């Protein structure tokens, strides 16, 4: 029985020592981890934003009718957040492709240079997380008017709206 208590105590001491050693060696790293965890989404948004904020604006959600009207009036630039392979299979006419992994490329795209130009981001469907992420990323980069078309490509193509391949 003494052995069990002694071993259990040893395990707790080793665990505490490991955490202390981990924190110590982390502080010596070139890029140390922060003490509080940040999700990949926050890290991505932080990397594209100019400030050091941790709370990011949410895009306005728009429905199909508003997206279609904006497209007809050429009132906004459509941004397709899907992967290039899906974009090439078909997309909303005049849309540009900007997957989440290439969000930093937005800084070099000429059509995105004007940050006051309204943007409408869409993805494949309502549950697609990439559209929301790209929209938040563009807001974090300083774009003033970014909306998210929640229905996305599935709804757009199902309604017989114009498509481009």
């Amino acid at each position, binding site marked *: 029985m003494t*052995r*069990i208590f*002694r*071993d*259990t105590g*040893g*395990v707790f001491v*080793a*665990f505490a*020592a*490991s*955490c*202390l*050693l*981990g*924190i110590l*060696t*982390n502080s010596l790293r070139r890029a140390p*981890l*922060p*003490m*509080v*965890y940040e*999700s*990949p989404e926050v890290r991505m948004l932080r990397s594209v934003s100019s400030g050091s904020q941790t709370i990011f604006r949410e895009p306005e959600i728009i429905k199909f009718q508003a997206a279609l009207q904006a497209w007809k009036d050429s009132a906004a630039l459509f941004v397709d957040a899907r992967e290039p392979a899906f974009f090439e299979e078909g997309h909303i006419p005049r849309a540009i492709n900007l997957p989440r992994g290439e969000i930093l490329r937005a800084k070099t795209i000429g059509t995105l240079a004007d940050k006051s130009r309204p943007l409408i981001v869409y993805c494949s469907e309502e549950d697609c997380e990439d559209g929301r992420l790209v929209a938040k990323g563009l807001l974090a980069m300083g774009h003033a008017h970014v909306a998210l078309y929640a229905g996305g490509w599935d709804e757009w193509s199902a309604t017989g709206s114009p498509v481009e391949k």
Partner: protein
Amino acid sequence: MVGHWLACRKMIPRLLISLVFLVAGALKLGDPLAFADGIAAFQIFPGWTINPLAMGIPYFEIFAGAGILCGRTRSAAALAACGLSVCFVLLYASALARGLDVTCACFGKWTLLQASTRVGFVRALVLLGISVCALRGRWLHPERMSPERSPSDLRGRRL
């Protein structure tokens, strides 16, 4: 000859568990961020615990893996390995119950050993089984494993 075989048989789980924890700990040390993302994927731990755990657990695994190979620390290290394995099993079981698709970076960036939730659960169960084998001899039959007893004592007992 039989005694030699028994000793070898007891060594196998110890060597296996030691190797697994040493490799896993060393690989995680190289990429603590991926491990932190792996811990967060289970959606159990509060944000302030994830990074300290991601920094500390790799060293704890290395302690456990190295300790199993040393005589004096063997039982405590085997207990630590059991504790870690139980935690892994519970984490994967809870992820399976909640329908989470967890790709744990349990071996850092070593993508060949990244596993889906189901595979991870089975792997954790196997790890627990081997850890229990490594611990069993130390706790259930401590008199046989005691370093104070000489080989001649053991031979005498068998005879």
